[in-house]
């Protein structure tokens, strides 16, 4: 086997030194009953060439190269070549969590830069090294708010990504952390502030709002903050489309920001691996889940970095830890870092502007469902046709349309969520518009 670097004579020499006859002797102490008496029912190993052929065949069973107007938490943005160049370096790709600082400064410094850039983007004081994804980041942010406030209840907007809310329910279920939802204004597609206000109470730990929200609309972060803070709750702002932060005011009124960075050079990869992140105010840092890198010095007095505040974490605090997270999404966070580096201050803004322009072009040719201001996603009415009909018609043209919303919002069964990014071509957008006629 090509991955096994030993010849039989080497194995023999090792067994001799150990003092056993055969490799089976190393397993002789396993109780007879637990031993597998037959070979695994898996075919023999195949060559690298066949592996490549196998996955190539699978890849062609997926849509390939179709223009796609899906967003809803996973976005198509151009990935600069540099990103892959960097993460393909074995030094980043094949290293472990940087526990041993002296031999991991590369990873540590890139995480420190990541944390910094996330703070710059979100207006927060401190950011962690990554979470599994946006959905778990949101759930963990809620748990963090519960710890920080000593309260239990969580109010989440229905305009938050439905799958994120599902994850929140799963996580909260057994934690004495009741989750309630509040709606959106039918006309604007923004959160229903009145309902929120009504549902607020002094047991509420956090209010969760997404912006741009699941409908693509820039939501009422300031107003939500006011309501939440008035009752001593924290405001958690969620984002699924970080490109929006190139243009949108950072959610500076939030106490915790939880988001998904897939847009930053992470391929959609059929849903993962992506990269979540949590950012917050300094005062809540000890409640924060996930790894943190801090700056320090080495014995020569040179700047150095290391993992820090580990007493929050499971390997030290076990059942009292802020989270059970151990392995995170470091390499994806690095991809996001390289992306932020490549686009930089001007690029991220211009990128956001292009997304906005593309989406405005497309929405301008359709009938928007909501009147709220949208970034690169928006909900449209499908008029006389059903969303599925429109998508079918588009598929015939090898275009993947939008997300029919009935699945998540029965009241929006006549609507579809569309996303346009800098990669959306005008001709394809025209074809989409045509399919609505």
């Amino acid at each position, binding site marked *: 086997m090509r991955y096994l670097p030993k010849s039989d004579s080497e194995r023999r020499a090792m067994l001799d030194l150990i003092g056993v006859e055969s490799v089976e002797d190393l397993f002789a102490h396993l109780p007879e009953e637990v031993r597998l008496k037959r070979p695994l029912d898996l075919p023999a190993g195949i060559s690298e060439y066949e592996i490549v052929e196998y996955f190539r065949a699978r890849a062609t069973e997926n849509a390939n190269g179709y223009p796609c107007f899906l967003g*809803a938490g996973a976005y198509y943005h151009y990935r600069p070549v540099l990103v*892959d160049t960097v993460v393909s370096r074995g*030094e980043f790709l094949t290293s472990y969590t940087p526990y041993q600082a002296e031999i991991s400064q590369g990873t540590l410094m890139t995480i420190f830069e990541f944390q910094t850039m996330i703070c710059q983007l979100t207006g927060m004081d401190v950011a962690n090294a990554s979470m599994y994804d946006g*959905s778990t980041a949101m759930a963990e942010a809620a748990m963090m708010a519960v710890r920080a406030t000593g309260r239990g209840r969580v109010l989440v907007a229905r305009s938050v990504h439905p799958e994120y809310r599902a994850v929140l329910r799963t996580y909260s279920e057994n934690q004495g952390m009741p989750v309630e939802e509040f709606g959106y204004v039918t006309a604007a597609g923004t959160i229903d502030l009145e309902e929120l206000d009504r549902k607020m109470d002094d047991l509420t730990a956090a209010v969760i709002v997404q912006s741009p929200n699941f409908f693509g609309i820039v939501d009422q972060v300031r107003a939500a903050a006011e309501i939440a803070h008035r009752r001593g709750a924290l405001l958690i702002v969620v984002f699924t489309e970080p490109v929006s932060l190139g243009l949108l005011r950072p959610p500076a009124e939030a106490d915790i920001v939880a988001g998904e960075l897939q847009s930053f050079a992470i*391929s959609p*990869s059929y849903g*993962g691996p992506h990269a979540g992140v949590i950012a917050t105010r300094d005062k809540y840092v000890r409640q924060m889940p996930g790894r943190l890198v801090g700056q320090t010095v080495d014995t020569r007095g040179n700047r150095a970095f290391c993992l820090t505040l580990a007493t929050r*974490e499971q390997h030290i605090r076990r059942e009292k830890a802020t989270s*059970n997270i151990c392995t995170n999404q470091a390499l994806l966070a690095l991809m996001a870092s390289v992306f932020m580096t490549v686009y930089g201050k001007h690029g991220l803004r211009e990128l956001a502007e292009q997304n906005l322009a593309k989406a405005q072009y497309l929405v301008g040719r359709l009938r928007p469902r909501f009147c709220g201001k949208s970034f690169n996603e928006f909900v449209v009415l499908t008029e006389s046709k059903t969303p599925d009909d429109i998508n079918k018609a588009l598929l015939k043209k090898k275009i993947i349309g939008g997300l029919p919303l009935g699945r998540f919002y029965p009241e929006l069964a006549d609507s579809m969520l569309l996303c346009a990014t800098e990669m959306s071509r005008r001709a394809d957008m025209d074809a989409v518009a045509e399919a609505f006629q």
Partner: protein
Amino acid sequence: MTPRVQPHISLHEPLLFERSSPGKLAYQLPELDVPAVDPSAALGADNVRSEIEGFPEVSEVEAIRHYTRLSTWNYGIEYGMYPLGSCTMKYNPRVNEAVARLDGLAWAHPYQPEALAQGSMEIMARLEAALAEITGMDAVTLQPAAGAQGELTAILMMRALLKKRGNPRKKILIPDSAHGTNPASAAIAGYAVENIKSSETGVLDVEALERIVNEDVAALMVTNPNTLGIFEENILRAAAILHAKGALLYMDGANMNALMGVARPGDFGVDALHLNLHKTFSTPHGGGGPGAGPVAVKKELEPFLPLPRLKRSGKKWAYDYKRKYSVGRVRAFYGNSGVLVRALAYILANGGPGLRRVTTDAVLNANYIRKRLEPYYDLPYSSRSMHEVVFSDERQAKQGVRTSEIAKRLIDYGFHPYTVSFPLIVHGALMIEPTETETKHELDRFTDAMISIAKEVETDPEMVKNAPYGTRTSRVDEVAAARKPVLRWKPAS
């Protein structure tokens, strides 16, 4: 003649922000093919930010040099042995990277129509089946993003089952040798954690277990082989004890590298377990992640698996969302699909016989190290080792040298350190897991280094205590970092 070596420029690579200069660009966007839009008009003036203060401004060549230079301060599997115990730092085949990047897979949107996602779905289905066979379990979910999330998922499922049976129960038993994620996951699922002490031989104390298990106990979480690298020989009895009391047996499968093709958890009473694809199944750690933590369960637990489930519908794969007992979602979409691709590629490459060989070579390597180092390092538990071996620093501590210092000295010999101070039940643990992908040559060099350090400890403990010497960064002050945390860069004011 004094050398007076000047430091290499790449040893002084500053932070990105320190390198920035207004007006430098590393990007260019295509010309817009639609009319430009005034952001303030479209979004509302007070929704638009002025600029991203402090955000980097560098050129492409600076960007690539920055990250390339930083990369050289790291150590990876492709440099040499990385014997971190419990981490299974094996070679990460490069073909896995190539296939995960195929356009049709990497650029698949999670919501694209099922008819146009059959390739990705088939990959997941095939991986589920392979993992079920390897573990001897009945059903597998690939959704969890890492081992810890796998644990949580499984505990939620066990809870749901027990609840359906009438009583979710109150606590979960966890051996004191367990990984920290086990108790942390149990807590999130709303369970109290009760630690059980390991026996003198380093395994589960079944007598104690028998005494403890009652109607309050939901499950035992056991790692097998455990974190001492020892096979839990009483696992069948433990299962019987638990099952007799209506409790469940959960296995932390992080050490599955010791068992493939040799023994299957499903055959020794395990009701649920998670796997770490980023350990046993060779997906790279990427400096901390991503991973994937599939959960494999017995039939009984199947109804509770997270949503959605893959199901066959005619000749196609489809998603089943209508499963009323499901614990729900543990994350958005279907899992870390890109990691799953890599794991399946690894399984295909090895095949059934190859996976067994992986295990036997992994165990061979660990035992070789044990044999070579036993004369020099204290072995607190003498039970047979499987895929890893745990020494203690007892002898070296007499000279004032602790495991963490030996670890740093190892860096000077060209190796990444072993795992330090874990498992907690070994005072001053040196936890060494070579994996199967180390050559005899590398093992010899590694053990030579360890022996040499043991001798250095005798002759010059102070020297060892101040290692490493050969790295760009000398011993890092972790205490200072935690005392006054600096967690982000800020412009000098």
